[in-house]
């Protein structure tokens, strides 16, 4: 056994110099972080990540550098931190949503026809470069693992390099992504080690402990990570990624987008509901839905420490009111949202408005408010809306429970 390990280690060491010398012009510490776990705790490396939001224990931070890895400049590098400790790194080399940007339904066909072939060629090149780069780094071709359920079921390839491991995700003509983990065992699973260590009743208790009642009457889950969707039509999958990360599922927004069939930047004919069902199964959580936000059901989930996802009608103008109110409320808690009377209801977004998804992570029953968070960044955490307005503007809601 030791001999095998030693041979493997020598092979890996031999391949490091080749792989790194070939591609990396920049001496970015991220390159060391592909093979050396010690880098993950070095002050220099940790300083290269975006500033973490105050008071959050589980956060997604962006790497500030723009290195070239395997001859490709990644679109994004994100790190997942638990209580300040880096637990995994996600390198998105190519994502169709990022490359195409937001494509309105009416333009989807034209964009696919004109820009699609360029992207397909790029995907072919990037997927080949990254695959061969990882193979050089590991000194072998890795091994295939099957992950996820339903629409999320995928074969990914796991590599071992240095004292770290990676998982390569290739979604045809959609996504090239590498996630780095502390061990091959973690790379081969979707549920986090912490989540897998708990039995079913322990899991429910652990999450129930995440829901707190504050002195002002807010019942709040404060530890849902925010994953910015960027300028992509990804609100439905980013909110899913936020809740699933909270539940310990190690998939990213791009994985859910690929599973849902958000193709070339367009959500036309995407399978969001089926992707949600698959995510629920993968997270080993029940995920019932209603076609209108039901506060009683939401309250049960939230009291159990489980955030609710709501799809709703959205307008720029109403969003302004919610944003402005949240900003002012932070300094003046005596402020009140408009009463949800007939006059106010006329101002709510209608079916002609945009569709949008938000995470409901709390409520204040006395004030008749839900507390919700967007997949736009920390600045839109814990916004407020009247329960009646969310009931009146929603068209789909998911209520996780164990």
């Amino acid at each position: 056994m030791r001999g095998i390990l030693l041979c493997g280690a020598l092979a890996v060491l031999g391949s490091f110099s080749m792989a790194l010398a070939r591609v990396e012009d920049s001496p970015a510490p991220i390159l060391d972080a592909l093979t050396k776990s010690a880098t993950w705790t070095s002050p220099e490396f940790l300083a290269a990540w975006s500033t973490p939001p105050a008071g959050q224990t589980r956060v997604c931070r962006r790497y500030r550098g723009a290195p070239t890895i395997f001859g490709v400049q990644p679109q994004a590098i994100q790190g997942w931190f638990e209580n300040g400790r880096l637990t995994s790194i996600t390198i998105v080399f190519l994502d169709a949503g990022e490359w195409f940007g937001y494509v309105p339904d009416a333009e989807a066909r034209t964009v696919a026809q004109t820009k699609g072939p360029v992207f397909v060629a790029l995907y072919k090149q990037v997927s080949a470069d990254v695959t061969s780069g990882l193979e050089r780094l590991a000194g072998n071709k890795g091994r295939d693992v099957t992950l996820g359920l339903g629409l999320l079921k995928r074969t990914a390839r796991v590599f071992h390099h240095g004292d770290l491991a990676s998982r390569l995700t290739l979604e045809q003509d959609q996504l090239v992504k590498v996630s780095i983990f502390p061990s091959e065992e973690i790379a081969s699973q979707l549920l986090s080690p912490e989540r897998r260590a708990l039995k079913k009743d322990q899991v429910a208790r652990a999450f129930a402990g995440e829901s707190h009642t504050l002195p002002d009457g807010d019942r709040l889950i404060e530890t849902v990570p925010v994953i910015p969707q960027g300028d992509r039509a990804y609100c439905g999958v980013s909110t899913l990624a936020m809740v699933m990360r909270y539940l310990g599922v190690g998939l990213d927004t791009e994985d859910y987008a690929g599973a849902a069939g958000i193709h070339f930047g367009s959500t036309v004919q995407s399978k969001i509901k089926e992707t949600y069902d698959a995510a629920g199964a993968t997270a080993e959580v029940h995920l019932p839905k209603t076609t209108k936000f039901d506060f009683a059901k939401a309250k049960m989930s939230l009291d159990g420490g489980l955030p609710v996802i709501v799809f709703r009608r959205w307008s720029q103008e109403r969003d302004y009111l919610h944003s402005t109110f949240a900003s002012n409320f932070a300094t003046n808690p005596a402020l009140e949202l408009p009463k949800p009377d007939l006059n106010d209801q006329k101002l709510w977004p209608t079916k002609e408005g945009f569709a949008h998804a938000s995470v409901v992570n709390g409520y204040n029953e006395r004030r008749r408010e839900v507390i919700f968070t967007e997949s736009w960044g920390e600045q839109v955490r814990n916004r407020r809306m009247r329960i009646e307005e969310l009931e009146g503007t929603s068209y789909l809601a998911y209520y996780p429970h164990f």
Partner: protein
Amino acid sequence: MKTPFACCVALRLFSLFALGIPQTFGTNQFLTSAGVSFEQFAADPAAWADSTALKGHWEAHGDTLTLADSAAVFGVAADEVTAKQRDGQVQSFRVVFRGKDKHGNATLANLLARVTANVRAFTGDAGTSAPGGGTVFKYKAVTITLRSGSGQEVVAEFARA
């Protein structure tokens, strides 16, 4: 500067039935160039007293300056933003919103109520009746007067309190 509500003049460019909205969309040139929303800028007379040093891009027509940038004001796409100046000093701003239905036809339906709700949210002031009609809101060092203009218009005027 990117914010979720960093714009809205180009809403019509996007399908109304899109399943998801991007994090930012459209353009709000004033916000991009000034780094602050128009209403925040206009609520601070110290920032706009000198008409030669106004944030954004303005075109002079006598004593009237017209904002050349697109701007969302109180979360609503403004159709026209002008400033009145005297002796090189801005006296007031006038923002005009013109109501349109989904087909682009002029309509006042709910426009005044929509703008009013957002002005209330912005100022935290319920507003009082203005002498010449409309509603006046106090915020920091300015008053904001909202009234229905001619035709299908709503006008917001910023003046020193």
